[in-house]
């Protein structure tokens, strides 16, 4: 749906009175159906640099609003309100309140990068979506998105062990996001694996799942990576005007 067809009456302002009679006149129904003033009275020039300070958002200022990204977008095809071009514009103008109206769908980007591959200006819209989700999270507007949770668990595992073990990763992620391990698609996947994989490999896979092997001499690397991450996160928080803080 093009933006101008978005309902101008904000549903959150509606007051519904199932039964309201004033002085004998029945005035039941929707109240507060007025359209709030939509005039843009100033630009907030702080928002774009904040998004640009987060990984993936660096090239947002290149966007010339051609709409290729939204047209190509996997999620937009399912939900027309998911509109990367529009959000990029809101960020560039600093229309923060407008952006926040969509805070609960921005994180739904599936990182398919169709937008990235079609963007004529190399804006990296997928990166901008990521940066925006991260911004919403850091500013406390949204809880960490499932994608962000996954990234955190993934990197935590790499950092502590120096390698990645998919079974453990999935188990942790599912536990963290309250998903069952017995989902049909997953059971199917495991069944398929068990049937097709050589026994030796299967054994190794199982063993790795239990033992959680580590890369040898990993400690110093681990320390360096951890320091780097702490540094980066502090820098991001400062760029957003937040105290350097204690994350992770």
């Amino acid at each position: 749906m093009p933006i101008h067809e978005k309902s101008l009456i904000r549903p959150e302002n509606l007051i519904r009175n199932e039964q309201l009679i004033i002085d004998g006149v029945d005035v039941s129904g929707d109240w507060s159906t007025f359209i709030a003033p939509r005039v843009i009275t100033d630009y907030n020039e702080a928002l774009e640099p904040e998004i640009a300070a987060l990984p993936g958002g660096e090239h947002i200022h290149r966007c010339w609003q051609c709409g290729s990204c939204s047209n190509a977008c996997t999620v937009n095809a399912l939900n027309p309100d998911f509109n990367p071009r529009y959000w990029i514009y809101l960020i560039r103008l600093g229309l923060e309140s407008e952006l926040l109206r969509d805070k609960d769908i921005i994180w739904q980007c599936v990182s398919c990068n169709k937008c990235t591959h079609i963007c004529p200006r190399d804006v990296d819209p997928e990166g901008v979506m990521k940066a925006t989700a991260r911004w919403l999270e850091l500013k406390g507007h949204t809880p960490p998105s499932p994608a962000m949770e996954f990234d955190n668990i993934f990197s935590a595992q790499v950092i502590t062990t120096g390698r990645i073990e998919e079974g453990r990763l999935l188990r942790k992620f599912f536990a963290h996001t309250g998903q069952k391990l017995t989902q049909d698609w997953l059971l199917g996947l495991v069944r398929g694996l068990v049937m097709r994989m050589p026994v030796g490999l299967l054994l190794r896979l199982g063993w790795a799942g239990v033992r959680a092997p580590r890369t040898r001499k990993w400690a110093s690397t681990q320390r360096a990576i951890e320091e780097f991450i702490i540094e980066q996160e502090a820098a991001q928080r400062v760029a957003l005007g937040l105290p350097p803080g204690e994350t992770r």
Partner: protein
Amino acid sequence: MNDPVLVLGGGPAGLSAAHALAAAGQNVLLVDKENVLGGAPILSGYAKLVPSGEWAKDAIGGMVDRVRADPRIEVLTGERVMRFDGNPGAFNVALGSGATRAVSAAILCTGFTHFDSVNKPEWGFGTYPDVVTTTQVEQMISSGRGVHCPSDGRKPARVAILLCVGSRDRQIGREWCSKICCTVSSNLAMEIREEIPECSVYIYYMDIRTFGLYEDKYYWESQEKHHVKYIKARIAEVTSNGDRLIVKGEDTLVKRPITIPFDLVVHAIGMDPNVDNMTISAVFDVQLEKHGYLAKASSYSAMCGTSRPGVFTAGAATGPETIDDSIAQGQAAAMAALASLRTGLPQAAE
């Protein structure tokens, strides 16, 4: 030896035509109504030119010096042509001073007139001192004074550049695109950002026409390196809240009205037909095209020709034109004039 060729107008086109003729051994009579040569870039004090990045006073000044030093070119400034009659190869020119001269051909390089923003009163020029034109900003930069608000001399924190002022507007009978103002505006926006890094610059546009190789060099560069913002809106009105200017319009991408405060509003003024064109048309008996520029003969058979044999034209006299193209056309007109003198008038391509 032929009588000299008359070159009327000493801007980029005329300077180029005069130099090319002289270089080919032809004597030239260069007449300009102003007291200095150089045309708009010198008369209006442009700063750094598109696309060379050279200062106008160096680049065009160099062309002026070359013409001034050429013994084959006689320069008459502060002078006009009152009458022009005769036939190809043997024309007579009556000058404003009363003198008459014999010339063999004429090249009209009389250029354009800057659009006068007073004719768009809704955009505040003439009402608010901090509404200025691109020429004024060029002058602020070239004079060394720097970009500032004329009202109190302060450095602007936020600048709006309005494109297409005096172009592409049926309301004021201007149905042409002035071609260079998008690029010039991107260039000025970058210069403002360089001089005042904490100043935000917004360009309000209907289309961005930074044609050809100006696309990445100006439009993209201004966005990518200098963070100039482009808003798709034709501004409806510029007013003031007593403190700052207020720009009103509709942001067509989010379909929302805007009333945004600015410190400095810049009109990207267009290139009108020269106000003298009616007179020039009468004196030289050449036709004007429908917008009021000098009508060109067919490019395919009579490049740089006019409706009158033996009278040629080049540059912004024929429509909005860039400096580089005006220079190229000046040289092409010189070639056409020389060819007509050596071999008689070319018959239209048959």
